[in-house]
């Protein structure tokens, strides 16, 4: 029945399968050649959670509908793949045993409808590619467009759908009445079975490799908190014993980092959410993946010899520039947006580790890093002045904890709240609230050094380790029930970079607890202004705390709140913390300026935040966008204190 040109159907099918199988095996072998040389990265264990992610984010496509049209189209195409793979399998078996894999009438109807929907989706997707051209599709740093590849793949899918429909006369697609049983459209059958094999072999050549790698990529995704940075090496735990640090060439990536690059679909959601891309810096996260993938394809070609590292453009420096890498604030918006769980921060940090080891650190960052090393804070302030802010709190209420002493709440201020005169006010406000609520509070004073959060994220692992050691020494010689901090970066560092037995909590969480316990005597603020809460990246996205600050804010009588469009998981970075403040990144606008615009867009006149750097960056942005007097930036603790004091609306901070 399937014989064609006098050759038996089984023979033709066998030939096609053999050709496709050998081609695909060869291609995948070449593609995975790089992965075999890659650095180790353990991604086993927690199989239940992995399976859950595979089902929800992989098969469930949970992250797709955020972009409604594209998301729904993708869900249809993906569901179509799943439904029709059974049909394709049965068609492969047909020439050997006609009717052997009969799937029954209900399935036939399902696959007909699916085929029709998939075909329509292809048309809409192609129309979007050619006519609508959403801005997200074109990256301003891209040297080549992927439209042709996208159209080719959409065309192949369309051919498959049409051929499938013609094989036995799908009513829905062709309007023909079904062929009499046993009769098929022979050319359509072979076109289908040939196309699907060509399609398979084409996948690993471009961005559609994701069809093969995306589900494994989701299954093997990072289960650590997103705020946790991977160690420089998984195979050698002694940092000083490492021959080289970080990633300078393709082979230095871990296998998962390369798989990430292979799995990138070029959908642009990461860059669409990236504040560095939005403000016109040299960074576009998707290009990190695309350029890495293109470099890998060029160095490990399907045909021809592997190109040795010294004959390639430098991965870090040429393919990916230093400026791109320094533009990232590690806010995590890209990772939150990626539908296939590609990880960016660890890759960027690994490449920065190489730059730092190679001495290639922007001049503007060298002083603050030297100051961190010499004086324990990036400002170069005298270490012994670190605890001086406590003098502003009600006298004697917040102690500088000496070794051997104990307290209930140990306030880890980190450098910004300890030294920046504006941010000291938030530390004082928070400490006042704690002492008024009867919490036995102390701080480390001069024994505390910077948490090293940004030092680590800027790739200066050795400096981070030295800072951590000093802090651990100070912490271990004192006893306390828990650590409280008003700095989400410190929170993240102490939770994820340090190993501390006691809980570490953020001041917004402490304030919410005190509120619950009835220990915040909040009074109405005679205030007709609109308030909005700006989610700090390291509080929200990286540590999952969205609700407590809002609960506190909403408990203040008499104020009206509004949400920005980009809030909670989609919050937009203010410009980054600590060392980021010293950077002179080339950009069109500052992140903070875009953020206060977003607040103004929803009519907010007061932006409440819970991070020293958000406060500093956004206050700067208020000034540079000419909103002085029209918009106030305030820390949650300061607002709570204002409400406790029952102040009438205070004059705006200038």
């Amino acid at each position, binding site marked *: 029945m399937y014989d064609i040109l006098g050759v038996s159907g089984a023979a033709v099918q066998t030939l096609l399968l053999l050709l496709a199988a050998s081609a695909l095996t060869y291609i995948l072998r070449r593609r995975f050649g790089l992965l075999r040389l890659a650095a180790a990265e353990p991604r086993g264990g927690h199989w239940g959670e992995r399976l859950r992610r595979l089902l929800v984010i992989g098969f469930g496509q949970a992250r797709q509908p955020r972009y409604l049209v594209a998301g729904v189209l993708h869900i249809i195409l993906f569901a179509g793949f799943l439904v029709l793979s059974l049909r394709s399998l049965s068609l492969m078996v047909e020439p050997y045993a006609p009717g052997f894999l009969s799937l029954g009438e209900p399935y036939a109807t399902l696959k007909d409808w699916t085929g029709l929907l998939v075909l329509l989706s292809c048309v809409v997707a192609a129309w979007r590619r050619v006519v609508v051209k959403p801005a997200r599709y074109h990256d301003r740093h891209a040297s080549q467009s992927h439209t042709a590849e996208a159209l080719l793949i959409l065309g192949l899918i369309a051919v498959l759908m049409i051929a499938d429909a013609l094989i036995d006369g799908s009513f829905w697609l062709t309007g023909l009445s079904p062929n009499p049983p046993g009769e098929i459209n022979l050319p359509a059958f072979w076109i289908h079975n040939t196309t699907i094999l060509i399609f398979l072999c084409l996948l690993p050549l471009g961005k559609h490799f994701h069809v093969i790698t995306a589900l494994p990529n989701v299954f093997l995704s990072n289960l650590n908190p997103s705020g946790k940075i991977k160690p420089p090496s998984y195979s050698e735990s002694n*940092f*000083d014993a490492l021959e080289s*640090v970080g990633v300078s060439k393709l082979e230095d990536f871990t296998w998962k980092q390369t798989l990430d690059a292979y799995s990138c679909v070029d959908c642009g959601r990461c860059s669409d959410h990236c504040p560095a891309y939005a403000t016109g810096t040299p960074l576009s996260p998707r290009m990190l993946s695309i350029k890495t993938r293109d470099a890998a394809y060029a160095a490990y070609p399907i045909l021809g010899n592997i190109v040795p590292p010294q004959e390639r453009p430098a991965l870090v420096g040429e393919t990916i520039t230093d400026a791109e890498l320094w533009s990232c604030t590690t806010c995590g918006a890209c990772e939150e947006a990626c539908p296939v769980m590609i990880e960016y921060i660890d890759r960027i940090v690994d490449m920065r580790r190489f730059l*730092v*080891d*190679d*001495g*290639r*650190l922007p*001049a503007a*960052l*060298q002083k603050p*890093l*030297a100051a961190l*090393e*010499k*004086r324990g804070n990036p*400002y*170069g*302030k*005298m270490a*012994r002045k670190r605890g001086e802010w406590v003098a502003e709190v009600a006298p004697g209420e917040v102690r500088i904890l000496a070794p051997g002493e104990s307290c209930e709440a140990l306030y880890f201020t980190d450098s910004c709240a300890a030294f920046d005169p504006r941010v000291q006010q938030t530390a004082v406000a928070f400490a006042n609230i704690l002492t008024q609520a009867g919490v036995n509070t102390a701080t480390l004073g001069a024994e505390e050094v910077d948490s090293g959060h940004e030092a680590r994220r800027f790739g*200066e*692992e*050795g*400096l981070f*380790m*030295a800072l951590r050691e000093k802090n651990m020494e100070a912490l271990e010689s004192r006893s306390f029930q828990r650590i409280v901090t008003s700095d989400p970066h410190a929170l993240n560092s102490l939770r994820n970079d340090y190993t501390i037995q006691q809980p570490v909590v953020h001041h917004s969480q402490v304030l919410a607890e005190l509120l619950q316990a009835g220990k915040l005597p909040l009074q109405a603020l005679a205030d007709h202004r609109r308030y909005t809460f700006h989610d700090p990246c390291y509080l929200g996205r990286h540590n999952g705390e969205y609700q407590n600050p809002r609960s506190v804010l909403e408990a203040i009588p008499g104020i009206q709140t509004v949400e920005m469009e980009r809030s909670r998981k989609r919050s937009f970075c203010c410009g980054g913390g600590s060392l980021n403040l010293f950077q002179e990144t080339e950009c069109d606008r500052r992140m903070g300026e875009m953020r206060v615009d977003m607040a103004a867009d929803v009519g907010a006149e007061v932006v409440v935040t819970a991070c020293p750097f958000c406060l500093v960056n956004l206050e700067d942005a208020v000034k540079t966008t000419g909103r002085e007097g029209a918009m106030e930036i305030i820390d949650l603790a300061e607002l709570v204190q204002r409400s406790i004091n029952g102040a009438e609306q205070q004059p705006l901070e200038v």
Partner: protein
Amino acid sequence: MEIYVCIKRVADTSEVEIEVDRSGLALEEADFSWDINEWDNFAVEAAVQLKEQHGGTVTAITVGGEDDEEVLRRALAMGCDQALHCYDPAFEKADAWAIATILAAALKGRAIDLLLFGAVSADEGRGQVGGLVAGLLDLPLVSLATALTVDGAKAIVQHEVENGLERVREVDLPAVITVQTGINEPRYVSVRGIRKVAAMDIPVHGVAELGLAAENYASQTNRITLEELFLPPQGVGAQILEGSNEEMMNQLIQLLQENGGL
């Protein structure tokens, strides 16, 4: 090419309240942090870049106390091949001339192609040592270099001269060149980079090794005697204008006119 670069460890006095100690001859150092003199950092970078282009070795030298070894480690981490620590209790409180004679003693008899200094040091800021060493070793000197290349047995140096001008000179090697900041972008030295060179041997040369008169070398050689150190007395007559920008401007113009400034 044999390159020598002379460096110094200086105090970072930023953010510190400067106080004279009880002797009246030194500053309270408790709050200081110490690091390589900024100009010397550019000189080390220049030396290492020349080595990377032309091959050869770079040797970093300092005259200073025990702790000053720190800046030599840093120079090694930046890519210097070896270091020499001129350290002897007798060198304590050496002035520019004494330091220059110690360096000259350390350098004499070595095959030198290029001898680099930072143009000036951030502590006393006299900018003398480079020139003095050039004189003692009888080598040509170009000071305040803002660009430096080497071509065979010549160095092409762009350097600052009077009235904000710069000039390009060729100088035969060996030569002494003092380096201005901004001549390059010094590489960053990571904590790990320092630890990697922690085990490298740095020879220490004192009066005996350098063949210098043993007793009280510095005090006998110094040509400057410090009589007294004091903070400049607070000036009088400072006035802060108040009011709107326009009012302050008018007050300022009036003051300048009254006092002959306009």
